[in-house]
């Protein structure tokens, strides 16, 4: 029944009364449009040009507000469920709280300081302080970031990214870190690691900003380096610094509810459309191609991981399927707006296999306890995705490089521009270094001050009771 809308007879009438309505309440001197109007054509043109721009702005804003809500949904309940299903019953609430605390804390720090540090113009490495307390962040758009939506929309959309990034790290030190230490660490981390990285890649004058002429243009559509590499690498450092959970790996530490994790993973998938397609910052066809790439990457990665399990264990698992999907979503994140649907399938498939190996083999080789595989999935997948973006980026999908005459230049390696892969390495390297160094410093700092880990007894009793005085499931009732 698809085309009938456009056959609608009374649509014209609607359109007209809409017009009048709009006229009456939006356009000064609208009366001027009644037949008897003396208004010159020029006036009408100017008004309708404004009206068209306003309509475009509303359309893009509608999509960006939806995307912002979707990205928040990724952290809560998405990630909270995904992670808390993987821990033992006695830590389910504490794990959820780590994601939830990020929503509450980072929101405030973002409003006070972080937005300015990340997106105010400033040095190549960090933003300035002109926007602290969101000064000057209002309804007017900033064309450097998003020309058709209120800057405030851009601010709150970016906030959702700043929330989920530290929340991802919590997977590495699940089941053993003090709540107070966790909160303090991640707050400082967002200042020391996230804000600079976001500025370098997306901020004005950013060192790696490919769209605003950064020194080393790194392609990162939706945060492969900014979000996943930084969080994943920091996760690895945390796992190494904090050490293993008591009894790991000897003891039985199977997920207490893969059911919760499954639901969380599905919500992550759905929310990721806001994360990647939203990063087009408008509702045009680029959003669509990012949307498609995202979905394809996730599906292919889920198949890749499951295939690996099928081959290795004789059967694919639900946990494997959802882990693969998340790995694919991570890997496609930097590429989403640059690659064709078919390339997205390749990236996803490779990521599925790669992360499977990282999580099942590499981790056990080195023997660190990255409890929920924050590094294995986000660090590894993010790094892989960032590199592959340089390989698969297509100028047909998104002609980002042009010569002086405006002729489109090749984007990625497969188009002959292998140099871009180098730039990608630069971006990744900086993210690795910044994340690793920043994380070590902060962990050390907190370790010597308030301490990082709960006591052995508390760890045995569980964080829910010892950190929050609750139980996730009440046995009695």
């Amino acid at each position, binding site marked *: 029944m698809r085309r009938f809308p456009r056959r609608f007879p009374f649509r014209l009438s609607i359109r007209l009364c809409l017009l009048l309505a709009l006229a009456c309440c939006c356009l000064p001197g609208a009366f001027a449009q009644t037949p008897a109007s003396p208004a010159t054509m020029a006036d009408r043109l100017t008004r309708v040009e404004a009206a068209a721009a306003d309509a475009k702005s509303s359309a893009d804003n509608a999509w960006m507000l939806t995307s912002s809500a979707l990205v928040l949904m990724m952290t809560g309940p998405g990630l909270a469920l995904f992670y808390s299903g993987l821990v033992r019953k006695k830590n389910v609430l504490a794990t959820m709280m780590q994601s939830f605390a990020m929503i509450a804390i980072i929101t405030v720090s973002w409003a006070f300081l972080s937005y300015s540090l990340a997106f105010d113009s400033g040095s190549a490495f960090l933003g300035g302080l002109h926007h602290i307390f969101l000064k000057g962040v209002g309804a007017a758009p900033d064309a450097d970031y998003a020309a058709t939506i209120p800057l405030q929309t851009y601010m709150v959309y970016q906030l959702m990214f700043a929330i989920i990034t530290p929340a991802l790290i919590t997977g590495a030190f699940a089941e053993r870190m003090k709540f107070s230490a966790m909160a303090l660490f991640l707050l400082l981390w967002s200042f020391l690691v996230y804000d600079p990285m976001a500025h370098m890649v997306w901020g004005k004058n950013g060192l790696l900003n490919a769209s605003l002429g950064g020194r080393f243009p790194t392609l990162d559509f939706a945060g492969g380096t900014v979000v996943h590499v930084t969080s994943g690498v920091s996760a690895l450092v945390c796992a190494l610094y904090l050490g293993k959970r008591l009894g790991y790996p000897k003891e039985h530490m*199977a997920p207490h509810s893969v059911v919760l994790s499954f639901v969380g993973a599905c919500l992550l998938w759905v929310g990721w459309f806001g994360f990647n397609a939203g990063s087009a910052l408008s509702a045009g066809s680029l959003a669509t191609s990012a949307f498609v790439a995202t979905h394809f990457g996730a599906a292919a990665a889920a198949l890749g991981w499951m295939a690996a*399990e099928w081959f290795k264990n004789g059967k694919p*698992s639900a*946990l494997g399927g959802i*882990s693969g999907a998340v790995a694919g979503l991570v890997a496609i994140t930097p590429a989403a707006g640059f690659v064709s649907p078919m390339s997205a399938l390749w990236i996803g498939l490779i990521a599925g296999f790669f992360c499977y190996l990282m*999580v*099942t*083999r590499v981790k*056990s080789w080195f023997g660190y306890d990255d409890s929920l*595989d924050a590094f294995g999935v986000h660090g590894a997948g993010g790094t892989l995705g960032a590199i592959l973006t340089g390989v698969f980026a297509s100028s047909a999908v998104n002609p980002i490089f042009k010569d002086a005459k405006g002729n489109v230049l090749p984007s990625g390696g497969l188009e002959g521009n292998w140099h871009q892969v180098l730039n990608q390495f630069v971006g990744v390297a900086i993210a690795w270094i910044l994340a690793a160094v920043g994380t070590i410093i902060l962990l050390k700092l907190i370790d010597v001050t308030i301490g990082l880990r709960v006591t052995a007894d508390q760890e045995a009793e569980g964080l829910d009771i010892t950190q929050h005085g609750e139980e996730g499931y009440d046995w009695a009732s």
Partner: protein
Amino acid sequence: MQKIEAIIQPSKLDAVKDAVLEAGVDGITIIEARGHGRQKGHTEFYRGREYTVDLLPKIKLEIVVPDEIVDKVVQAIVGAARTGKIGDGKIFISPITEAIRIRNDERGPTAL
């Protein structure tokens, strides 16, 4: 009075319950349990980590009966619970010195 404790396969619960009631028992108490024995468990995989699960779901029945019908009840349980496969479970019998019905303080076999 004797207490009959039977550990059976969960899938046999309904059958055993009916058989036991058949045999003239008035009351049964049932408890979820996990069992380890000759029956070998299975392997589970979570992100490459392998768990051999050797504690399998079982159902434990506790039935206190007058001495007279002990054999009858045991036969009923064995009959209903047997599949012939390893893991069918066990029955244990032990003496009960006193039984009290809370509702009316009745004592002894009549309280069962």
